[in-house]
């Protein structure tokens, strides 16, 4: 299935947390520029997918493979995955008082530029970029001076995630329930930020529980993740279908995989 044109290729991925199997044979291929939505009930492994791909401690890969741009992602350290172009927007971004947002963003951008063999930005150049990014996600510039996510509201944290994405210019962005806890206005700001970053080179995995975010970020493909694997794939209309039917059918009907078996 994968070819030279594939950005991310996940093959038969099995992963566990504290010895509990969560991912049970996940397959997914993503080409540059595509937007894939992953939906599914709680506990299906949606967030785990993001954590496994980013290399979080405690998320063990039991078997399978993942490549990003042809490179073995699973062999890399967490920071090297980011430098290779992976970005995870967290559902619950961490608060880090004492580390200023600006310092954090500068170090992150510098680290990635260095890894790509690019020159470091001057403080003035970076400040200009950061202020611009603030404006785009509707965060006051004063937020750059505050501790990372310190005392930010839920919506502000999510916008800060999108701002980081804008500054880091990744190849593949995973948005982990970025819509959770957001009202419509905040969701629109986040969606606009994401849409402004769509390009033929950049791909997205939009993990969400609800269809409404997909009204703003139009996916090319929608996948249903249940019990650790993708049980149904389709186009944007699948999301609407799910919204109407919910996930109850997953328990009552045999899944596609099972039918194929």
């Amino acid at each position: 299935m994968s070819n030279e044109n594939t950005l991310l290729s996940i093959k038969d991925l099995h992963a566990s947390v504290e010895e509990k199997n969560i991912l049970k044979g996940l397959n997914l291929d993503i080409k540059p520029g595509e937007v894939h939505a992953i939906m599914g009930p709680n506990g299906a492994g949606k967030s785990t997918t993001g954590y496994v791909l980013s290399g979080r401690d405690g998320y063990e890969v039991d078997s399978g493979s993942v490549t990003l741009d042809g490179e073995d992602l699973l062999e890399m350290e967490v920071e090297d995955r980011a430098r290779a172009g992976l970005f995870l927007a967290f559902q619950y971004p961490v608060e880090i008082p004492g580390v200023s947002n600006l310092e954090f963003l500068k170090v992150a951008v510098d680290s990635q530029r260095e890894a790509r063999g690019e020159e470091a930005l001057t403080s003035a150049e970076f400040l200009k970029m950061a202020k611009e990014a603030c404006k785009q996600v509707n965060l006051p510039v004063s937020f750059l001076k505050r501790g990372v996510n310190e005392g930010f509201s839920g919506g502000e944290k999510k916008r800060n995630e999108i701002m980081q994405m804008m500054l880091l210019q990744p190849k593949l962005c995973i948005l982990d329930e970025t819509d959770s806890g957001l009202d419509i206005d905040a969701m629109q700001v986040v969606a606009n930020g994401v849409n402004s970053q769509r390009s033929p080179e950049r791909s997205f995995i939009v993990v969400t529980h609800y269809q409404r975010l997909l009204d703003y970020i139009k996916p090319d493909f929608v996948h249903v993740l249940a019990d650790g694997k993708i049980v149904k794939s389709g186009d944007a209309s699948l999301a609407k279908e799910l919204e109407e039917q919910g996930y109850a059918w997953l328990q009552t009907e045999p899944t596609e995989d099972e039918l194929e078996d």
Partner: protein
Amino acid sequence: MSEWLQQAIARADSIQDGFEDQRATSLALLKDIKWPTRKTEAWKYTPLRAVERSKAIFKEESPELEPVAVEGLEFLELTFVDGQLVSLPEELPEGLSIEMQESSLFATIKPERHVFGLVNDVLAADVAVVTVAEGVAVEQMLRINNLLSNGAQGHIRVVVDLKAGSSLKVVENAEGQGASLTTAFTEYQIGVEANLEHYRFALQSGDNVAVGGSHFKLFENAVMNSSIIGFGSDLQRIDTDIVYAGEKANAKLNAIYLLDGKELFDLHANVEHAVPNCTTEENIRGIAGDSSRAVFNGRIHIHRDAQKTLAELNNRNLLMSNKAEINTKPELEIYADDVRCAHGATIAQIDKQALYYLQTRGVSRSQAQLMLSFGFINELIDQMPTVELADWVRPIIRDRFAQMEVK
């Protein structure tokens, strides 16, 4: 009794001035006192060898020394060199006075139990009394400089009296050139509805030996906000006492220590909630590297009548080496039944979740660890109300921290 203390007493016997009555009392106490040892609870982890072995002398003549400059701040400077008051501000704002006179507050706010406080009572040659008149808000910061030339011994004492409704910002700054020994005690009376913004910087390290204290008494609706920042040295000990004498008073104490080499730093903080409706918030954070030793003792005593007290004490520590040592002891003594109190002490490694978060943005693990360790103490620097002081001390701490990492 130690030889050092005997010499101190002999010297005190020879000093004559206006503080004789109070000094006589302290001297009598001192002559009777038991020199602290390992078995003395308040000195259990802080041996006094450095004092006993000190060769620091009382100098007849001292070199001219200038306190460190802080960008963006012009202080009213009260400068002691080797224990002698060498300069007072030429002009004082209206309502602020500094006098070398007898004060009825002398040795009344600082409790008698501090051995070196008694030493200071009898050896501090020049006692400065700072008074802010009722309702006066002094904008310019007052800085008390305790400067010590190489090999010198000096003892300084300042009494600060904030009358009702007044406000003052005070920086206590100590700088030693090496092989020095000092005791530095300050007493603050914060009157009804008065406001004190206080800093104590103890950034002299190496073989400087410093023992001292900042002691506060708050009356009704008084507010104090104190930040203490210390490096360790052969011996660095600070005692602080906060006593509530009026209701609805409020004290915030933040302290940071950052230790390297074989340094020793000891902070004892004692809070006496003697009356109802007062609030205390203490945040103490430290990092100990190499084979250093940090000692923290935080006692909050809530008396029987002190209902509706709110008190929080939090001490968090990071160990950067397996030879470093942290001795922390929070003590809550509560005799009232309608109070809200919390205390905690942790000694930990770096927050793994935050480390992962930084790494997912491409920051290397080692740099992320550095950022988080610095951030851990920087969080308290960020809370300092005077931004210029925060901007001054932040790079000093960052530099020291960076050096610690290299080892």
